[in-house]
């Protein structure tokens, strides 16, 4: 057993070395005159139109295949190999882009900025997994997402996190989603892409910190299964919502659950709802009162969140390059003479006046004022609903996957002794 972990750690260390070694500086130009004319830089051509739709075709094919393996074959192995294919194709071949997770930002910016044109392919990558989730559960997470696939491969000794901790950490994806939408809507940044921990591994090139972050997630992922998917992924929030209402969903047992409990520890993501008989009727009646109180509290949480969001808008807006530049030049006007600061030099070369820059930055900050207000209210709403859900009790007798949380990986199916 010890050798197993040693091998995995060696493997991950070698991945770090690979990433670091391939990120060396380029050789500089010769210093003396040789008559050689330096070619002017060229911009790579975009991916061929037909190939973009080929990516969509592959995505649909993968989603259908996963659904087939879940509902027809009930084959964990089939799902696993499909996810390996997705990892190679969408991850290493397509370099992690195009990506349904990042497409959230394209959609947001399209809605917020009429001048921004979103490609149909990006829209399809955003919609298709959600549509599939509405019918078949999170098949995208099961085998189409390269980020999920690479984490799934390293799951070896998953530990069971306390339920309360999982629910607490479950707030983070909502916050990440809200921030990603805010930053995209204000035209600030696509933070999901910027802080994608695995894209550096897919591309074999990234800043050292991002490589370390990616490797860190994989190391944690040995013991805490798919940590990015469960506690960070903003797209997972949307998929969770859709999957909760899915028409069909993966089931542990092909027919009737015999409550043998064999599948109880099969899910590394703790996404199986286990029948609980410890809750008494008197608890339920108490819960009704609390439910009503906490329902009434939701508007208060939202108002508090909105206020906190409003207070934070100055801080949040500093991530915008224009706001940052304007504030930098106000606070440090001497930097105008810094020829090494390319942003400042580009601004000076543009001929734009400081007043115009500040005016534009103020407009962006105003967008942040409104956006942060909404973000705060949204987080307040999520907070209220999460608290409220603790008072919702539904009686269950069977072992069932939690429709929202289940990543449809199919592991539990192998544990069920019931034959169809």
């Amino acid at each position, binding site marked *: 057993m010890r050798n197993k972990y040693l091998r995995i750690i060696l493997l991950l260390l070698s991945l770090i070395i690979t990433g670091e070694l391939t990120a060396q500086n380029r*050789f500089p130009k010769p210093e003396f005159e040789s008559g050689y004319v330096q070619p002017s830089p060229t911009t790579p051509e975009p991916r061929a139109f037909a190939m973009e739709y080929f990516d969509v075709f592959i995505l649909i094919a993968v989603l259908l295949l996963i659904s087939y393996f879940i509902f027809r074959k009930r084959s964990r192995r089939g799902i696993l190999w499909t996810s390996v294919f997705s990892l190679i194709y969408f991850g290493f071949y397509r370099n992690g882009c195009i990506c349904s997770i990042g497409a959230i930002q394209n959609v947001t910016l399209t809605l917020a900025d009429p001048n921004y044109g979103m490609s149909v392919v990006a829209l399809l990558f955003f919609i298709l997994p959600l549509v599939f989730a509405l019918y078949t559960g999170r098949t995208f997470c099961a085998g189409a997402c390269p980020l999920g696939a690479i984490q799934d491969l390293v799951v070896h000794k998953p530990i069971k996190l306390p339920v309360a901790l999982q629910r607490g950490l479950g707030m983070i994806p909502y916050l990440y989603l809200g921030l990603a939408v805010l930053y995209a809507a204000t035209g600030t940044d696509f933070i999901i892409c910027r802080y994608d921990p695995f894209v550096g591994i897919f591309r074999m090139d990234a800043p050292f910190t991002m490589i370390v972050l990616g490797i860190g997630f994989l190391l944690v992922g040995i013991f805490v299964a798919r940590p990015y998917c469960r506690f960070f992924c903003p797209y997972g929030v949307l998929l969770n919502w859709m999957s909760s209402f899915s028409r069909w969903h993966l089931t542990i047992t092909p027919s009737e659950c015999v409550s043998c409990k064999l599948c*109880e*520890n099969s899910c590394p993501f703790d996404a199986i709802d286990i029948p609980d008989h410890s809750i008494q009727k008197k608890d339920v009646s108490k819960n009704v009162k609390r439910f009503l109180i906490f329902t009434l509290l939701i508007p208060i949480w939202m108002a508090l969140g909105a206020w906190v969001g409003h207070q934070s808008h100055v*801080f949040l807006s500093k991530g915008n390059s224009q706001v940052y530049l304007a504030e930098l030049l106000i606070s440090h*006007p001497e930097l105008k003479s810094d020829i090494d600061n390319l942003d400042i030099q580009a601004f000076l070369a543009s001929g734009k006046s400081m007043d115009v820059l500040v005016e534009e930055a103020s407009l962006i900050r105003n967008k942040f004022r409104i956006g942060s207000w909404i973000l705060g209210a949204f987080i307040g709403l999520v907070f209220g609903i999460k608290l409220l859900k603790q008072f919702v009790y539904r009686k269950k007798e069977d072992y069932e996957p939690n429709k929202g949380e289940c990543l449809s990986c199919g592991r539990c199916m192998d544990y069920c002794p019931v034959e169809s």
Partner: protein
Amino acid sequence: MEKKNNIELLSQLALVVGGISIFIAVLLLLNYWNISRYDPLDSQALVALVERLSDEPDNDALKLEIRNLDLLARKAYFTSQWQVKTGGFLLLFASIFFVLVLKILYDMKKKIELPEVEEEKGMIDRILSQRWIGAIGILLVIGALLASFASNDYLEKYVAGSSEDGQTKIDESIEVIEITSSESLSDNQGLATGLAEVDSSVAEQNTNVDVANDPSLEGLASETKASIDASNTSNINYPDLNEIKKHHNGFRGPLSQGISFHKNIPIDWDGAGGKNILWKTEVPRAGKSSPVIWANHLFVSGADAQSRWVYCYDRNDGKLLWEHEAKDIEGSPASAPKTTPDTGLAAPTLATDGERVYAIFGTGDILALDMSGTRLWAKNLGVPDNHYGHSSSLLCWEGRLVVQYDTNRSGRLLALDLQNGNPIWDVPRNHKISWASPVLAEIGGKYQIITSADPLVIAHDFESGKELWSVECMMGEVGPSVAFSEGLVYASNEYARMVAIKPGAGSADIVWEYDEYLSEASSPVAVEGLIFLGTSYGVFACFDAKTGEMQWEFEGNSGFYGSPIAVDGKIYVMDMSGTTYIFEISRELKLIGEPALGEKSVVTPAFAEGKIYLRGTKYLYCIGA
């Protein structure tokens, strides 16, 4: 049986693939080590050949040799790059394959575990979940509020038309006067010396000052024939040299030469124990500026990240007479520029002419206050790009305030009108940034402003700003100001040298050089044919001023950042631990005393009427016998 065979096969396959992965990883490591050890850019052979090429620019055979060597280095580099990339891919594929094999292997080995009997605890989980969600919510609120309170809204503070346009206004307000010839200045109205009657009560009290007959006065003008811009200053009298010598009106005393003319200065005190401490008071904000004194007024500056202040104390009892905040100055930055802790924003020493006190801060703010603390004028010279912080002190003389304003991007030497801060002249300094301060010296009957920077020691005419002479002899980050005595200028800097310069008409010659004990921040002082110099590593040394020959050396407890002052036939210099070493001005080492302040200090002492004034990290001290 078949399953067992498969498991066996997969185990062996995993071992092989794992071994290959490790082998590739080791090769990559070796390659990385090799690349990091051999940087083609640092090829000594190539550097030597390129150096030779500068001597022999027409040597075609040499050019060919360089090209061939350069090509070889490039080939080696790109081959290494190819190896790294190929090895990286091989390692990646081997690793993926390794993971898959392991995955299948463990799936095959996996057995369905019997369920553990766990206590059902639905209600407990729900209660704990509420707590966790609540805790995360509180953390978010606290984090967001802390971030919001820590954020400055600079956009809100911005006043339209006050930034680049404000900068332009500042630049426009500093009129760049064309350097005028000395002939043209002859029309200026000369002012007789000794006209200033700044503080008659003090003049009467100055019985301890022996100005006229002090032998160390040589080199300082006996009479000042100032030709001050008549349009600005025709009706104003400024203190002459005799008057200034009665006080301690700037960094290192009158004319910033490191010589004070007071007598009966104490040689023994104990800051911690209170011996001979007449008073001690805490300065509200930190600063590295040394005290300056005029009559009963003692001035220092202090600053923190939020504000910059000038403090005026009654030097007789240490009472804070007034304080003035340098704020609401057009062009002043909303947030202070970054400085290092050992410099800060209040490093330059103030200057005073008995009517006004002048201060400059690391923000580029410069201001004049009257003796009661009322602001007379203020302006911002442009926020300095200075990686340590601006530290050049002000020099006030004959109606002008001399400002050495060096930054990483450019440098200027300005003479501002004391009355209104308008520039009388403003000349660019085309050399590297310096932290030294200007020194005034009378050479050939005219006053020259002498400054030191990498690579020049340079002199400007006090009247016109015209460059009179320069010597290329300095290097590095120059901190010490120059010394002057008997017609020779002495400049020093650590890792460079100490030189004695003989200024002539339009040029100057190096008389001697020395390069062992050199000062980093402490300025040398030249007096009575000797030079005294303190190093940052604790050696204080004395040299013959004419030959540069070392007379003696002394090792203190700590390094010297504060500058030595020659006073009352002695040298007073304080090291960074706060110990003041008092030496006799002599070719023999004669340590008279080494009293301790009781706290650290990097400033230079000030003197008045038999008293010494010292500033520690926290407190200001008046010491008297």
